[in-house]
């Protein structure tokens, strides 16, 4: 809502600079988007009178004008506007003036002719295209004939008015009007408003029933009023009215439509004007649209009406979409003589639906949706009728058609104690009383208990909490104390699950991974990759783009997007992890289960070549090492890794499923080359774990194992084995077959090629033996070692080397 401080002064006597006023409004009522005035930064733009206009000899569209700008000599200005003519008052940007966009106008030559300045359109001096009257949209603007040559144009055009742009919150629709805003400022500054009442003059020789009858469904339109104004001449509005409209961001049209818009701004009451002679019959009905009905609206669009649309209908059918937009056929034209003027209240939720369904978010619809002042419907109608009659030399037919519901002020009881309890203040009864009075509320008070009667114009107030807000904001939020909740102490701590999630994050970060946060919404295809359990996908019903249609069921897809983004920008070394939810839906449910996962994607170098170290490439084992570290630190035991070819998106020879015992908790491996290719990324290693399963794992408390006081004995063994035999098989076999004295088996070398046959690989292990109760005998160790080695040879056909 753009509020002109000049207009405000008609209603309230405030002598405050606009910035200060805006600040006060922002601190006390609603947000302010900005304070502006159109003449800001403009220079030397004056009224000119075109004395002579002749064709430019070298051009088919330029004219050479001799212009009186109040100086001793005429200025010669070349002008290309189609509506230039002699004997008109125009806007002249003098040489060395500044017009909109900080453009400087200099004396110049146009096709050989001197041009001392520029004759301007409204747009050229800073008006928005959307407010320029249609008649002047394609050319220059013509000022009123009584404009004085040489005078600055600003006050003629209302460009010297300060405009405060209010960003009115949905609850304060009362401030979507000049009168409402004036009431608000009166409360803030403890002033009185002076509001003009309509001085209605009806033509008592004629009466409304000769023209029209109204039937309105009370549910749809509790108040529906029509007046008739006859013998109206439709023409351009006077300047004062045009100025008020364009300063509020509304394009002037004609003296009828302009008045309805003016009253909309003044009272916040949307009005609609019909060309009475286009209405079929004398009966106007407010009803819901019937199936199959259509209406061509003022924007020339043919609309199929929906069963919830409220319409205004004549004998032939709908002539307006109630509260949103009128019909083209019954609209005001230059030929209109009799006007049916409507002021009404429409069901706000129906208007809201209509506005949304037809995408018609007009100023009127916005106000009906949020509610309007039901106390001034008739007054606004009278004011508008009177103004139309005055501006169009018409007559108001006596009487009003339609009915109006009676509306009573809301009564709310509240105590001083309650107000102070909620605000944390120690306000006195008198202070509260003063605030209510400033707001214009009628009060009765007894022992600090208030009975407050809230005027109809503040329909946002209905419960005690609303009154507390009024007190708080007028008293000033700056004056509230700053305390902390007292009362019973409560412990603040993470749940076990929250702690595990946070531990997981810090373990991975300490392992060198950066935390990524990717999008939870992705494409259908990406959502369903790297799945860890059978589930249905969950899709948006109206997605905004094909990239974001479905809720993710894995984290890796998002991380691969991140890797691709980095690789595309020449960042080839990437180690990212993400902790977040995946969304698994069961067939019978609309809502998915949300499961906490953690995943990582790693590509490029683990560590770069340096003067000190060789470079180290990220590979399966680097990645697996991080998983092992994570699970160890989280206290998960009995973890095992099993080669897996089950994951379509993973390298079939380089992927392991991860289990706790026999419980599948995730996988680690290299992304399938087909997928890497699709993303345009290098070899990438990933893992994804179901964190919930880890959280559910009942990890045992660590029990201290005494450190053996006796020396350990080690045996090294290298063996050639078939390539198909897994390290885990051998380690598990050694552990199983050895006696109790075996304390550890450590793989320290893997070797292929050279002297080893191509079907084999060489594995080298260090076996550590210890006994916590006595010194080990070399012979005992040898015996145990030899026994296991021979069994190993028999089992796996290994060659001990």
């Amino acid at each position, binding site marked *: 809502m753009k509020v002109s401080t000049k207009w405000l002064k008609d209603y309230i006597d405030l002598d405050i600079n606009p910035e200060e006023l805006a600040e006060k409004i*922002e601190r006390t*009522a609603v947000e302010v988007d900005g304070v502006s005035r159109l003449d800001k930064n403009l220079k030397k733009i004056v009224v000119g009178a075109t004395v002579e206009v002749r064709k430019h000899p070298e051009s088919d569209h330029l004219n050479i004008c001799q212009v009186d700008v109040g100086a001793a000599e005429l200025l010669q200005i070349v002008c290309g506007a189609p509506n230039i003519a002699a004997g008109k008052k125009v806007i002249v940007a003098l040489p060395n003036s500044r017009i909109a966009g900080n453009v400087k106008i200099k004396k110049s030559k146009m096709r050989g002719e001197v041009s001392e300045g520029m004759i301007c359109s409204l747009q050229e001096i800073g008006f928005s295209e959307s407010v320029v009257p249609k008649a002047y949209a394609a050319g220059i603007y013509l000022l009123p004939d009584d404009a004085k040559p040489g005078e600055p144009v600003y006050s003629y055009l209302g460009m010297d008015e300060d405009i405060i742009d209010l960003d009115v919150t949905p609850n304060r629709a009362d401030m979507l009007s000049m009168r409402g805003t004036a009431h608000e400022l009166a409360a803030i500054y403890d002033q009185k408003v002076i509001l003009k009442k309509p001085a209605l003059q009806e033509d008592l020789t004629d009466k409304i029933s000769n023209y029209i009858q109204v039937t309105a469904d009370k549910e749809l339109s509790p108040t529906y009023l029509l007046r008739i104004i006859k013998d109206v001449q439709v023409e351009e509005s006077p300047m004062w009215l045009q100025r008020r409209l364009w300063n509020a961001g509304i394009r002037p049209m004609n003296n009828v439509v302009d008045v309805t818009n003016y009253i909309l701004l003044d009272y916040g009451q949307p009005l609609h004007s019909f060309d009475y002679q286009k209405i079929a019959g004398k009966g106007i009905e407010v009803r819901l649209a019937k199936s199959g009905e259509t209406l061509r609206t003022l924007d020339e669009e043919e609309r199929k009406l929906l069963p919830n649309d409220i319409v205004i209908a004549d004998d032939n059918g709908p002539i307006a979409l109630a509260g949103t937009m009128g019909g083209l056929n019954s609209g005001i034209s230059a030929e209109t003589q009799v006007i049916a003027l409507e002021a009404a209240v429409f069901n706000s939720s129906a208007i809201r639906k209509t506005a949304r369904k037809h995408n018609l978010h007009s100023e009127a619809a916005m106000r009906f949706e949020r509610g309007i002042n039901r106390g001034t419907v008739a007054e606004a109608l009278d004011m508008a009728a009177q103004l139309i009659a005055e501006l169009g030399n018409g007559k108001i037919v006596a009487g009003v058609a339609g009915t109006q519901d009676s509306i009573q002020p809301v009564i709310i009881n509240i105590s001083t104690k309650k107000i102070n309890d909620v605000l944390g203040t120690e306000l006195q009864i008198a202070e509260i009383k003063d605030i209510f009075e400033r707001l214009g509320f009628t009060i009765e008070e007894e022992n600090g208990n208030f009975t407050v009667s809230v005027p109809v114009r503040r329909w946002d107030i209905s419960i005690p*909490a609303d009154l507390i*807000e009024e007190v708080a904001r007028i008293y000033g939020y700056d004056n509230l104390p*700053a305390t902390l*909740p007292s009362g019973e102490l409560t412990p603040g*701590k993470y749940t076990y699950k*929250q702690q595990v999630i946070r531990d997981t994050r810090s373990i991975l970060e300490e392992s060198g991974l950066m935390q990524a946060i990717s999008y939870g919404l992705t494409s259908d295809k990406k959502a369903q990759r790297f799945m860890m359990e059978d589930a249905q996908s969950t899709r948006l019903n109206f997605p905004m783009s094909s990239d974001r249609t479905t809720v993710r069921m894995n984290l890796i897809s998002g991380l691969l997007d991140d890797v691709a983004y980095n690789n595309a920008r020449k960042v080839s070394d990437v180690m990212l992890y993400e902790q977040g939810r995946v969304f698994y839906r069961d067939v019978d449910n609309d809502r998915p289960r949300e499961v906490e996962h953690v995943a990582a994607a790693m590509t490029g170098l683990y560590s770069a070549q340096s003067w*000190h170290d060789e470079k180290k490439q990220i590979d399966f084992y680097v990645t697996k090492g991080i998983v092992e570290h994570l699970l160890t630190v989280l206290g998960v035991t009995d973890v095992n890794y099993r080669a897996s070819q089950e994951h379509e998106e993973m390298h079939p020879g380089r992927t392991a499923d991860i289990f706790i015992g026999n419980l599948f908790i995730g996988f680690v491996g290299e992304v399938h080359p087909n997928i890497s290719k699709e993303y345009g990324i290098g070899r990438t290693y990933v893992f994804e774990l179901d964190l919930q399963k880890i959280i559910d794992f009942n990890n045992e408390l660590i029990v201290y194992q005494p450190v053996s006081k006796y020396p350990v004995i080690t045996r090294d063994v290298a063996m050639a084995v078939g390539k198909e035999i897994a390290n885990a098989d051998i380690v598990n076999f050694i552990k199983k077959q050895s006696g109790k004295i075996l304390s550890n088996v450590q793989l320290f070398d893997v070797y292929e090629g050279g002297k080893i046959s191509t079907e084999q690989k060489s594995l080298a292990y260090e076996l550590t033996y210890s006994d916590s109760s006595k010194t080990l005998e070399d012979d005992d160790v040898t015996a145990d070692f030899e026994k296991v080695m021979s069994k190993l040879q028999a089992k796996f056909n290994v060659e001990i080397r």
Partner: protein
Amino acid sequence: MDLKDRLTKLKVKALSEIDTVEDLKKINEIRVNLLGKKGPITEVLRGMKDLSKEERPVVGSLANKVRDELTAAITQRREKLEISKIARKLEKEKIDVTLPGVPVKAGQPHIIMQVIDQLEKLFLGMGYQVVDGPEIEEDHYNFEMMNLPKDHPARDMQDTFYITEQILMRTQTSPVQARTMEKHDFAKGPLKMISPGKVYRRDTDDATHSHQFHQVEGLVIDRHITMGDLKGTLQSIARTIFGDEREIRLRPSYFPFTEPSVEVDVSCFKCGGKGCTVCKQTGWIEVLGAGMVHPNVLTMAGIDAEVYGGFAFGLGPDRFAMLKYGVDDIREFYLNDVRFLSQFAQKG
């Protein structure tokens, strides 16, 4: 020559020899030669048997004195040589200490998570619980329980991704509050919670809009909670995130779930309030919304609004991070460019 003279001369000669020797091996040789069983002092001592009773102790004591002096001189010299030997060795071992150290491989939390972590720490310290809830919610919890019935004009403030008519991507973390309020047993004390998490809005992504972002919402419900308590709590948030010097101010606003509702500005951390580009010359930056819980919200959750009341606030860690670190494009947070993420390795 008499023994005394020999001893004196021996001493002078030996001392000069000791003083000039430069080699640790040689000094050892000198020690053996001088003080060993075959050395001159031993020889003198042996020759004492020919001396008179009177002379014997005199010479004996002199011999011992000379031996002690030489022993001391040798020890001293050896120590000196040893020190210089170590010094030479250390000199040889000199390295270029300006070469870079071996990098420690370390990742770090995402910048948004750092903001959330800071807030969690603050509120855990004040006795709040951290409560998580579903990202895919029911309309009932996301809107209706928040005093936003269907067709409420304020629903326009939040464009929503729906999955079905009743199921949606949560647009705020307040549904977590609704769920927690429903379950809370006030016999066990007040309800003090924050709910951090992801939220979604039907917005076209650009520099200042993202269809996915984060929220941390807070809620306190008890018998005697005042708007002053809200103000003090908001002040703690502002100071924790933006610095101890920060002031806050409240402006009226509107949220359907609170009444009164306020918008909260923090004094500009860049200019301290004098006015700069960050605060658009106002000295203040809008950082969050808050208010006193609307009685309808309490009633719908089964809480007696006559007895209990409280405050709620909601803030955006994305916006906080953008303000604090001068990030001018919200999309940066979700693209995970390593060059972006790694800029926030420093704590807090």
